[in-house]
């Protein structure tokens, strides 16, 4: 649920990066953090285990600029991908304005992607949401790896509705900002359409 503050003239929106464990959600946020001007970003918070796996979430506040005199801020969150952290994922999805599903392109992770996608559908449905009516994009990460599955197969399995999709290598930054811009654009368009 976006927050429009007329007093401070700000719009705040929440974007959640979802996907299976080790697919690169945190790496996406780290790249955005490293490549964003200091005045446009807040502190990146990572609540992680001792083994540097996401325990609860990563959080990165970003300011994109002004629209019609309103400062536009996006709060980026990742969920913990490991299957047993489902309770945490449900909490982080609350109030979401846009979703990025980060798929792991490695052939052996296809099943994990589909399981995570099903879990996303289920957890959104519990909150009365549906991916078809929510700003939503897919990122196929790790395309640079030699064991990446063919794009056609991933698209067929994960994107039957043809939502915006991006090939990426979050470790090198390829496709990271394209993904973010696409989902941010959809969120703002949704905000506009909702007020018409």
């Amino acid at each position, binding site marked *: *649920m*976006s*927050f*429009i*503050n*007329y*007093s*401070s003239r700000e*719009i*705040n929106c*929440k974007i959640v990066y979802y996907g299976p464990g080790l697919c690169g959600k945190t790496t996406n946020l780290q790249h955005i953090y490293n490549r964003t001007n200091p005045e446009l970003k*807040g*502190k990146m*918070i990572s*609540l992680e285990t001792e083994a540097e796996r996401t325990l*609860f*979430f990563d*959080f990165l*506040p970003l300011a*994109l*600029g002004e*629209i*019609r*005199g*309103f400062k*536009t801020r996006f*709060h980026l969150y990742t969920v913990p991908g490991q299957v047993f952290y489902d*309770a*945490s994922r449900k*909490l*982080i999805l*609350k*109030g979401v304005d846009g979703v990025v599903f980060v798929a792991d392109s490695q052939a052996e992770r296809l099943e994990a992607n589909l399981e995570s996608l099903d879990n996303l559908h289920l957890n959104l449905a519990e909150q*009365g*949401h*549906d991916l078809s*009516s*929510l700003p939503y994009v897919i990122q196929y990460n790790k395309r640079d790896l030699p064991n990446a599955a063919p794009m056609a197969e991933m698209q067929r399995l994960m994107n039957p509705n043809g939502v915006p999709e991006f090939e990426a290598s979050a470790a090198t930054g390829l496709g990271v900002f394209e993904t973010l*811009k696409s989902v*941010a*654009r959809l969120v*703002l*368009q*949704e*905000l*506009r359409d*909702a*007020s*018409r």
Partner: protein
Amino acid sequence: MRDLPFVMYDEDQRQILAIVERLVRDANAKGIFIVDRNGQLIVEAGEMHGVDTTSLASLAASCVAATGSLAQIVGEEDFPVHFHQGRRDNLHITLVGTSFILIVVFDERSSLGLVRLRVKKASAALAKAFEDMAKRAERAPASPTNSPFSEITDEDIDNLFST
């Protein structure tokens, strides 16, 4: 179905801020923050200038969300009051209505008893103020004539990403 945006106008902000500023004085608090359950800062008051309020709001909302789920596991609906004790500063967190969180930061100039007493009265006033806000929003929902966003063009959106 999507949630509607939460909209706060100047008048709402002034009303909420007045209650919070009074609570700062009554409870001898260092700082008071109201955030919504999605982690957005609504208002702040007190002497804690320069603190990272964006992180504070996000972490407080997450803490409340996690504790709420814990409550349900042990058969409670929610834990409406949390207290975190530090060496110098302490945090008193209270749920206000169904959607807001009141965070009071205090040190040795105050006490848990005083904070609890003052928060009880203030949170009732805040709950009423938020309820009134919701009723006003229901009576006069944002329409094309009073929403600046209905006029956003694709070019406006493109311009955000051009720099």
